[in-house]
């Protein structure tokens, strides 16, 4: 069904995928003949023979222009690891990642030199982590945090960067009077919004959102989700959203992948996944939704 859907979107949509991930895997340990087979005989993601942890196993996905793709799964299912591999925070063991906005999808990003990877991180992807401490420099002012990616891509004009930074802070509803404050002194919700502004600073065509609303109170959650939808509406950015919260996925994602033990076990339109789950794990996940 997933293949049919992909083909349908590709044929009907005017554009090829912005981001294409094929057979991405992340493994901690050497692996052995027992666990490197196509369909290993054990459950979970730890090989009983050699102890190798298979964090991500042959995961594939694509994100089309302006589309939001969600990844759900329980803790330890490999959804964040998958995203961290795409963003080069983690070095993938194998696979193929292509980004159209970077080079037309010609090369596998995982084979690029460290400098080129840095350029991809700065110009193609915007990343928002669950923990703002990972995405922000807490001691630097909010404006400086936003300017970082611009400086990295060669901007050397303070006026230009300040104006763009203030525009972005306004967009995420942070008063300009706080623009020179370091995020250290902000509340969690404000930190998360600064992080989103930072991720948007270099106008990235692809946003990676890792559990953005986890740990925020409900009203702030709603504000952040509104902001994300607003960004999609106005900038036609493609997004990959990781969350264990089916409510967030229902609200944001057009298509959804379900991960379990490092594998993608099911994918399809979000409504389909939530209304008519096929895989036993998805059924359990959906039925446990309050």
């Amino acid at each position, binding site marked *: 069904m997933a293949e049919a859907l992909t083909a349908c979107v590709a044929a009907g949509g005017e554009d090829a995928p912005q981001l294409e991930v094929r057979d991405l895997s992340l493994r901690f340990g050497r692996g052995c003949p027992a666990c490197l087979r196509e369909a290993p005989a054990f459950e979970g993601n730890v090989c009983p023979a050699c102890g190798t942890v298979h964090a991500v196993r042959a995961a594939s996905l694509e994100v089309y222009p302006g589309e939001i793709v969600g990844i759900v799964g329980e803790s330890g299912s490999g959804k964040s690891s998958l995203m961290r591999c795409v963003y080069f925070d983690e070095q993938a063991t194998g696979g193929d990642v292509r980004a159209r906005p970077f080079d037309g999808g010609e090369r596998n990003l995982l084979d690029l030199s*460290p*400098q080129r990877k*840095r350029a991809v991180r700065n110009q193609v992807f915007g990343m928002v982590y669950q923990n703002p401490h990972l995405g922000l*420099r807490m001691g*630097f*002012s909010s*404006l*400086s945090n936003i*300017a*970082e990616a611009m*400086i*990295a891509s060669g901007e*050397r*004009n*303070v*006026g230009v*960067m*300040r104006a763009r930074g203030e525009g972005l802070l306004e967009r995420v509803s942070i008063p300009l009077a706080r*623009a*020179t404050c370091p995020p250290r002194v902000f509340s969690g919700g404000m930190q998360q919004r600064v992080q989103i502004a930072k991720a948007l600073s270099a106008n990235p065509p692809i946003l990676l959102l890792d559990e953005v609303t986890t740990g925020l109170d409900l009203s702030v959650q709603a504000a952040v989700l509104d902001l994300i939808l607003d960004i999609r509406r106005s900038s036609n950015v493609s997004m990959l959203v990781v969350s264990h919260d089916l409510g967030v996925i229902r609200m944001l994602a057009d298509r959804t992948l379900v991960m379990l033990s490092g594998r993608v076990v099911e994918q399809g339109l979000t409504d389909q996944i939530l209304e008519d789950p096929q895989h036993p794990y998805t059924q359990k996940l959906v039925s446990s939704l309050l």
Partner: protein
Amino acid sequence: MQQRYNFAFFDEASKREIRRAVLKGVCIPGYQVPFASREMPIGRGWGTGGLQITLSLIGRDDVLKVIDQGADDSVNAVNIKKLVCDTTDVDVTDDTARATLIQSRHRIPEQPLTSKQILVLQVPTPEPLRSFEPSEAATRVLHAEADYTGAWLELFDQIVAYDTTVTGADHPVMVNGRYVMAPSPIPRFDNLKLDQAENLTLFGAGREKKIYAVPPHTSVRPLDFEDYPFVRERFEGVRCALCGAEGVFFDELEDEATGEVRYQCNDTAFCAARRAQQREGDAAPDGAALGPAPDAALDSAPEDAPGEEPGEEAGAREVV
């Protein structure tokens, strides 16, 4: 010379190892070369990096000058001179022109150096990206990939907060278009003296175990932004209260009793030489080509008499 020691304190193998690091530094301008910093009879953080370079380079014919914060006769400078003299018997001088080897902290002498001279600077923090990235392993990768976002980001953060960069000293510089380097805590005033200099400048960080270099005729550009260009400290309309010099780096001195502020040359040897010349000029009337003469009122102040210790202006002198 105290014969208990080898010439210049170190054994020859140690000197050779340090010279090898120096040579590598000269070959890759601005690159921090790790070296085995030796135990010294002075504490780390008190100029051991510079001292090790000085001791490894010095020969019997060298003439040594040591400056600390612009002064030849401050405690740290005197002690370093004593140690080198006791173990080498070389000549020491205050005269910048006569010195072949100049070890300095915080200043590059006012008098331009020549291709026959080597300047050795003592460095407290050789890593310009350290406050941005605490991990040494990570900063090495950043240098290797020439990713200097962090250095610019720090300047940007200062501009956001204060509308100007606030690097009082140690303003980061781009060397030879490749490596961003901490130029030791010399004031911004001296940064431009490194650019296309005639002399070799060596940087030694004893505590951090790094040596780096700016060879002669190398481009050294302070980092700055298009709309916030690099500026030196400004001393507009300021003259030295002792020798009348203008356009040099000044110490600001405040008379605690009267609250009166006056300035004098930070480079004491430069100031003393000018005053000596002026005295000769007074004796022979044709020596008038010495630049601005000191004010008569200042001449009459006996505590400013030439040859005296400079005022103890910098009570908060940090020693490196």
